[in-house]
């Protein structure tokens, strides 16, 4: 089967029953996508599948035929950080960093749809991404800054 990961066409004969998460991490070495719970609760494994935010632990590789996948490694692919990444660094929205890739992708998806989100919209957009370090205060601030 064939899919597009971070703009690159990938052809694979891997088991279609693999979780997309495992294919990305172990098959392609894209370890920026994290496993925090394996049951779709924490969002650490968030990627964009055809532009939609998904938990890659709940997606099977076989569901991705022809799909476009964006992982954290593809967000700053050209070498330039996404405004969300820059803002997260500037305002201090990163602590342990394990949830950070997933939060970045949730924010990228949000801003693609709502270029100027209000705080409630931001909170809704990231409610599927658990963070235990920041209390989400500076994460919200970073997303607002990236939008503004």
């Amino acid at each position, binding site marked *: 089967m064939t899919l597009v990961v971070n703009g690159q066409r990938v052809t694979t004969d891997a088991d279609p029953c693999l979780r997309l998460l495992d294919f990305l991490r172990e098959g392609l070495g894209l370890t920026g996508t994290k496993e925090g719970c394996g049951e779709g609760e924490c969002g650490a494994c968030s990627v964009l599948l055809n532009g939609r935010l998904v938990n890659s632990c709940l997606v099977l590789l076989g569901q991705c035929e022809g799909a476009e996948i964006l992982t*954290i*490694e593809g967000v700053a692919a050209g070498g330039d950080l996404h405004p969300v990444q820059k803002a997260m660094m500037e305002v*201090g929205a990163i602590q342990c960093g*394990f949830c*950070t890739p997933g939060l970045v992708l949730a924010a990228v998806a949000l801003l693609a749809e709502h270029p100027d989100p209000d705080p409630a919209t931001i*909170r809704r957009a990231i409610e599927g991404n*658990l963070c*235990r*370090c920041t209390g989400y205060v*500076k994460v919200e601030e970073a997303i607002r800054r990236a939008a503004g």
Partner: protein
Amino acid sequence: MTWIGQRVVRKDALEKVTGRARFAADLFVPGMLRVRVVRSPVARGRIRSIEASRAREVPGVVTVLTARDIPGRNCVPVVLDDLPLLAAEEVRFHGEPVAVVAAETEAAAEEGARRVVVEVEELPPVLDPLEALKPGAPCLWGNDNVFKRWHVRRGDVDQALARADLVVSGTYRTPYQEHAYLEPQGMLAVPCPDGGLEVTGSMQCPFYVREGVATVLGLPLAAVRVVQATTGGGFGGKEDVPSIVAGQAALVAWKTGRPARLIYTREEDILSMSKRHPGFVESRYGFTRDGILVAADVRYILDAGAYATLSPVVAWRGTVHAVGPYRCENVRVETLAVATNKVPCGAFRGFGSPQVLFAAESQMDEAAHRLGLDPVEIRRRNALRDGDVTPTGQRLRAEVGLSEALERVALASGWAEKRSRPPSPGPKRYGIGCSVVHYGVCLGAGGRNLDRAGAFVQVMYDGSAIYAVGTTEMGQGMHTVLAQIVAEELGLPYEAVRPVASDTHMVPDSGPTVASRTTVMSGNALREAAAPIRRTLQEVAASLLGVDDPTTVRLENGKAFAADGRTVGYGDVLHRCFLERRHLASSGLAVSPETSWDPETGAGEAYITYAFAANVVEVEVDVETGEVEVLRVHAAHDIGRAINPTGVEGQIEGGSAQGLGYALLEEVLHDAQGRMVNHRFSTYLIPTARDVPPIHAHIVEHPTEVGPYGAKGFGEQPLMGIAPAVANAVFHATGVRVREIPITPERLWRALRAGGGR
């Protein structure tokens, strides 16, 4: 100051925001085995047999190891050394490790672990510490099931209570809390050609892991090298228990001669790793009619779980903090850490204090209510000030910022106006509550022998520099603060300073990364290490500038300045150092000032200094459903000196959010047989972005003489006072005093129905 107090960007921000940071599960080495753990299916029993033949039949399974395969001591060394790495004869909690399975793939290891049959002769478990204390209870530890007892005996409590104008009594309960760091535990163990072993993984305390691995393998400490991988959160949950994970991986690596990696699933992580102790507190306080606290009588029971692990020291910190940050001359505290057949409890942000502070700060609120005093006012009257004596008899230096913190949150929150608002009509009731706490910085007398830290600094000839410490970065921002300190001490740009991963082969035993001790201890150690390099740079710059007294040369941001304003750049200074073959590397050791503790009375200098905090929480309670919505949090923390204010705010915001989870949501539950029932993120709930309200962080700075630039450690403090502030706000909103957390809708609804509310 060039760098101290600056909001610099975190050292690790770029690698983390791009996904390049490498956590334990991101480590892959050729030939690496995957490891899974076989666990006890029951809470208590005798192991009859461990049958692994069907596991060994799984293609890819390489070995199954049990306690009998451990070449050294079957022990995870911590305080009383009672926890085995793998259960040998009996199991004492549901999820206790019994065997490890290693295989070529995760799937094979998992299938192998599933096929190991552990036959256990079940015994009735003891699940409640109050039951464990009753005469005739099954003996899990010693003859009374008490791992450790601590006392404070000061003044005459009985007489003071008898004479008090008001006595407030209450019984308080707090739950098991799970750390829920986002990165599960994980370790990679690699055998070395020289016969030693390298262990890399997620941890707070590399020197604990080194001792743990050396103990189970029977190796000298020098043969075990432990390196910290990027660590995805700790909060205390990666203090002692990573030694278990490392021991399991290391045992496989040792027996097979191959690299072995063990990454816990979320389920087994919650099931078997440490937790916050459930707490049970009986409290009697005496007051004058003016609201002056004259006596405190506290009995504090911690449910320690199946093994002592860190409980003796957790109970000690809880004992010292039991009465909160107040003057009180008549104090009796008895603290017991009690054995039960549940997962062992250990370190968690606050370390035995949040449970007893929930009681203490609820008591103060109740006293204010009964005396017709404002809750801020009663705290104002009793709060510790410069030169005061703590409830354990320690006289404080002029480093106490509690009153300022209290006034800051009262003012910023609009306390006086909001507190006097008339009750809202309808089912949604507004409430506002407060709390104050103090935090003993570093290990104190309970861990005085461990309280030292090493450091290494080296400046390169191009003006870049590295440093190493033995404490760890787990997300709290250690490396940012420490790089600021190195840059400040050596006059280097912050960007030029690079941290080395924490590594037991780089620096001497630096103790654990706990007790909010890292900024103080590693910061002081780095200043010590930087001092001789700084003197060399000053000497060489002085000769280049033609200055007689090198101590008058100022070093700043890559330049040396003479007193008259002439400068020489570090390019020239370091070139000269190179030609003169100067020594630009140095090590340092910081040793904590002396502390003391009388085991009979609790008298002494318990801690080297204290941080202080005040919290105000606003809520809206739906009295028809029992739901509590938190509207806002104001938290002010006296941290001595903020080396990085952004990092300080991050600690306040994150700790407050964790405290809100503790107050309202979080509770690990067991069934009647002692089996944990909610060890998943779908059943153990932590706050999401929509659960956390705006949190306003306020920084108060009353510098301490013992910390670098006056800084106090404080990373744990933000969690500690949130739960009572929430409960006090709920009381203000409803008139119902909730003495058990979490305040779930059901619990509050029942309390409202039971009456007593408005």
